[in-house]
């Protein structure tokens, strides 16, 4: 995180508005800092709390969302970087094969990290519709789960691939 430049803060009233595509709709975000992470815009401004805060420094993956078809960490994308881009959060999925597979394999324990896991899996399957076991491990190792759901996630990703998540 960058320390607040002290002299600058008085001029916040004229902050620009940022337009982005979110879950298939255009969203205008105004009154936020250019460097405000998308994570907090989603959670505290737009009320989309499905994207979780786990570390804020890009090491736990709990805030993973899709930018286009790529997995990104919402805590590492600023408002100005997000402008003009297309994002999907967990709320933007509707009966997605990954969600169905997650239910079928009964993956979740506490469930807190699972939105990030699912979004990471969506991105993997978009890019590799038929992933190997190693592809799955490599992609999902970006995300932390403390309850220990990794074995079930492995199975769920394979099932999601079968259900056509990559199509």
């Amino acid at each position, binding site marked *: 995180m960058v320390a607040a430049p002290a002299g600058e803060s008085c001029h916040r009233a004229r902050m620009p508005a940022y337009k982005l595509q979110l879950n298939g709709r255009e969203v205008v975000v105004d009154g936020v*800092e250019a460097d405000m992470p998308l994570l907090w815009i989603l959670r505290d401004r737009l009320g989309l709390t499905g994207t979780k805060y786990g570390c804020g420094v890009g090491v736990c993956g709990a805030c993973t969302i899709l930018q286009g078809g790529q997995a990104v960490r919402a805590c590492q994308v600023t408002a100005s970087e997000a402008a003009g881009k297309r994002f999907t959060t967990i709320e933007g999925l509707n009966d997605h094969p990954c969600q169905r597979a997650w*239910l079928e394999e009964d993956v979740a324990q506490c469930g807190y990290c699972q939105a990030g896991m699912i979004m990471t899996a969506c991105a993997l399957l978009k890019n590799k519709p038929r992933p190997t076991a190693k592809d799955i491990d490599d992609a999902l190792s970006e995300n932390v789960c403390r309850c*220990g759901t990794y074995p079930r996630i492995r199975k769920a990703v394979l099932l999601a691939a079968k259900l056509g998540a990559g199509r």
Partner: protein
Amino acid sequence: MTLTRRAFLELTAAGGSALVLGFDVFAQAATDFAPNAWVRIDPNGVVTLTVGKVEMGQGVRTSLPMILAEELDADWERIQLVQGMPSAKLRGLGTGGSYSIRAMWMPLRNAAAAAREMLVSAAASKLGVEPASLRTEKGFVIHDATGQRLSYGELTTAAAKLPLPQSPKLKEKFTLVGKRTKRIEGQSIVSGKAVYGLDVRIPDMLYASIERPPKIGGGVRRFDAAKAKQVAGVIDVVQVSRGVAVIARDSWAALRGREALQIEFDNGPHPAWSSEEYEQQLFEAAAKDGISTRTAGDSKTILGSGKQVIEADYVYPFYAHAPVEPMNTVAHVHDGLCEIWSSTQAPNDVQDRCAQLLGIAPEKVSVHTTLVGGGFGRRLGWDYALDAVEVAKAIGKPVMVFWSRADDMQHGYFQAPSVHRMKAVLDEDGLPVLWHHRKVSTYHNARRQVTSAQLQDPEYHRGVSWGVYDVPYAIGAIETAYVYVPTHVPIGPWRAVFAPSSVFARETFFDELAVAGKRDPLKLRLDLLAAAPEIVEAGSLKISRPRLRRVLETVAAKGRWGEKLPKGRGRGLACNVYDGVTHVAYVVDVTAVKGKIRVDKVVCAIDCGLVVNPIGIEQQVEGGVIWGLSSALKGAITIRDGIVQQKSFADFEVLRMNETPLIETHIVGADAPSPYGVGEPTVAPIVPALVNAIYAATGKRVRRLPLA
């Protein structure tokens, strides 16, 4: 129990046309009775279970309704669970100790069976038939002779007027209990709709985060909030007990505001404290006798007999809980009342302590418990709820106080470090004839302090040395003891609490003895568990050797124990009985690759008594294995100059998917009459099984954690 079961039930008149039975999860005697859970059947047929047990991933919101649906013959689709709010009536909501299912099994069945019997009686009157001619199924009372069916909903009004059955008949065969049943909240979790503490949104809610003294035990001398207040979105800055809180319109502004604070900290009484020095203190104290927790046989004579003595010290570090959801609580203090929303494992404590802080009666404090994004014992503390109440009181508006990941790593309470001094004597045949285990560690101090009476009480010391005094093996002379080395560093419960360090030392040292005595570690365990008596009494625990043998035999068969392995590969074994009731054994396979250890496979055999939900058991085995492997192979907490050195998952590393072995679970012991806990018991024996496998693969004996 059949004589008095009626005494543990209460028919709630306030139910109106609904049938409501209150029951007590804890009462041991009828005079203790005070209902703290309720089964309610409404005229629309919906069955509601109100309990205080908190869902933190252990599956209790699924398994408790399963028990209810089974005994009531309710329709699984029409059962809902309501999270009880703490009150003078609703006590004992704390969720921990792998105790929910174990504690609720009988009381819940009893209440459900009573409700079922009342519904059947009501139906019998209505139909003018004998109750014995009726049966129940999926929310209906059925008279097979005439084909008549009455729904539970249409019977509640009449049933609620009937007396409570004296001793409701419990089922002998189950259809739902024991069946693989999926998690109730699955859909809300995968759609992102599940609400954890951090997701609570109250109208006009502000966000706050607290800058804390970096040194444990430190304080705030003075601070200047001018720059912080200039940060866009920052609304106010207030000092609270544990630091300086920045209140803002969103989380980001609160975090940025914290960075702009200028604070002069007080370093507190332990500015130079280090975990390394504390470890030295533990080693020095290991020379003391401590408080004896178990004595058997004649150690003195055996030690003087000239037989082979084996000694080793084991070292266990500090760990953080690091649940992925950092600590947080929403509070609103207004009009002499306090409303709280918290992902807590301890709603009663939160209510009591927040009331105490505000100087108001507990009933003025309402606590809404959300889903918990990982508990692991950390959320048995109420410190983070107090943070929220202090800030809310200061600003008079609803506010969420949230901890950053670094706050969570550095300012929580920790798993206690320990040193274990082990000594054994082997006879001419390589059989252990003496076993000494001295645990040197510290008590929990974060939530409650030890009392002076407890300091000398052997039972208290058994309570903090699970895995030490309850050594299950038949060895002629046994001495176990505890040496206390105080610290100001906050210490509190962590998954499996006191067991992991002790079982690591015990089961690894046992492996050392097997190697020294040229005996197979499985065979040696089985031999020492075959001796009389079958039930070992240690403190208040009764440990079943035959049950432990059974999990060992199962895991050995499933894990192909004794198979010859190629060079560089190793197989290790360990077992434990948790709290005297849950038996777990592991076989772990590892491969040494270029000096690094890869864990290939874990096979578990578990006897946790009667099986409620097999999926839940498997999940807790997987979770316990991964939790334990993390602690052995990845990060620990270190403290230098009074400051916790780790700030995130980058420096307190945890196991990732690519390091996760195949995990295979074999459930044995489903023939038991009642269920026991699973969440914690699975943690303790995985680490020694791992390090024993590492020894088998490399010849290197691990006596210090973590390996990294």
